[in-house]
């Protein structure tokens, strides 16, 4: 797989059938629409952006902040150009309109899912799901990363996020919108945030999961001192 930095307008291919996301077709050629990393597969070329806003899509799980309570809707900031609407009927249980602020008030954080997005980008959210994972977040901390870098916090089929959770020993949820919720003891949350910042700074480089492993080992040694001192001593110089 070939990866390199491209800028808008760069010629990527003469075969318009390979045009993927972040590219456009003009005069029979495929060109980059974004400043980012070209990702060349066998049958497609895409450009992975290095920056950009979160644009909601149906079934995305995101972390939102209630900014307004209106008649029958909560208005939710989802770190996007578009506000999300959470209708009272999408609250997990039946509640009365007068009581809306008792359940979710301005400033509350929620783990929510995009139920539907229409052509004019009206974004409907829900808190109803089978696994009961969607909910109000009442503890822990929230940090944010550029939504374009969010996939690297998750890693290939979840490898990075699994590593972070198990090595740091905290609970984490990565929203598609770049907001990340972390819960655990204060020092573990601090370390998790440091790890996220490390990913952010190195998101465009390969081999990130391996380096994260080394990064966490080094950090834990200094941070948690004795607890981890003898662990894997010979591996870490």
């Amino acid at each position: 797989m070939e990866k390199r930095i491209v800028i808008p307008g760069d010629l990527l291919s003469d075969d318009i059938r390979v045009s993927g996301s972040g590219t456009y077709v003009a005069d029979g050629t495929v060109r980059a629409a974004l400043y980012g990393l070209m990702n060349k597969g066998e049958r497609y070329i895409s450009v992975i952006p290095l920056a950009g806003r979160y644009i909601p899509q149906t079934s995305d799980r995101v972390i939102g902040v209630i900014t307004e309570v209106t008649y029958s809707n909560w208005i939710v900031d989802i770190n996007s150009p578009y506000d999300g609407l959470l209708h009272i009927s999408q609250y997990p249980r039946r509640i009365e309109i007068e009581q809306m602020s008792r359940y979710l008030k301005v400033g509350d954080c929620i783990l929510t899912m995009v139920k539907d997005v229409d052509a004019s980008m009206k974004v409907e959210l829900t808190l109803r799901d089978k696994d009961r994972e969607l909910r109000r977040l009442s503890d822990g901390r929230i940090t944010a990363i550029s939504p374009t870098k969010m996939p690297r916090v998750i890693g290939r089929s979840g490898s990075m996020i699994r590593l972070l959770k198990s090595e740091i020993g905290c609970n984490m949820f990565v929203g598609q919108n770049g907001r990340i919720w972390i819960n655990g003891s204060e020092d573990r949350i601090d370390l998790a945030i440091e790890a996220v910042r490390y990913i952010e700074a190195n998101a465009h480089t390969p081999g990130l999961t391996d380096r994260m492993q080394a990064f966490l080992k080094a950090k834990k040694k200094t941070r948690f001192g004795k607890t981890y001192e003898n662990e894997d001593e010979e591996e870490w110089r």
Partner: protein
Amino acid sequence: MSEKPEHFIVDGKRLDGRRVDELRPIKIEIGTLGRADGSCYLEWGNNKVLAAVYGPRELHPRHRQKMTRSVVQFRYNMASFSVDERTRPGPSRRSIEISKVSREAFEPVIFTKFFPRTAIDVFVEILQAGAGTRTAGINAASLALADAGIPMRGLVSACAVGKVDGEIVLDLMKEEDNYGEADLPVAMTAGRQITLLQMDGHLTTEEFYRALELAKTGCDQIYELQRQALIEKYSKEYTTEIEEEGPAPAGEPEGDADE
């Protein structure tokens, strides 16, 4: 204001020693402002300009929203201390016109259809003015837009061409701008689509064609500098990373970012 020089070109050299087809030195830094989605600081001769991009973001007031596309907004502003005689803060008729034509220099290249109802805001601050601020602002804005991850057909590059001592010259400096016979700022894409063109002064059509040719070579050089600055921003970070961490582990790079 300085006096009008007797000659602008002596022995093929201009007042600052440049050839007629030579640009002033350009320095570019990308991503300098933390709060903006994309930003660029650019020095060009005596010009010092900053560009920032915010968006796509919600557009207020709502009645200005377009249901099928994003609205590009461009604000060119001069700091009061950026010119010899202090200028009053806030928009002037001149800055409003420059803002309009600069916005129109980008509208053809930005894929606005991806972001209905939003605004893409481009802000250019002229911190020190030294002839050619609008083209400097456009070059910086182009990079700030790329830095913000805004989808575009290509970068926009701009420079001015003019006429002094009867000769067509590239990239006017202050004296040439003030006392020259013509000033022709041009912005174009790498694909030679002209997105900004203004002219004041006096040129024959033949001179105009030559001037436009010269503008093309100027824009090409600027495009290369813009391109280098964008590529370097990430390759630089990449190299320091490798040095700190030792050689990257062998094997396939991960392909997780496109999932």
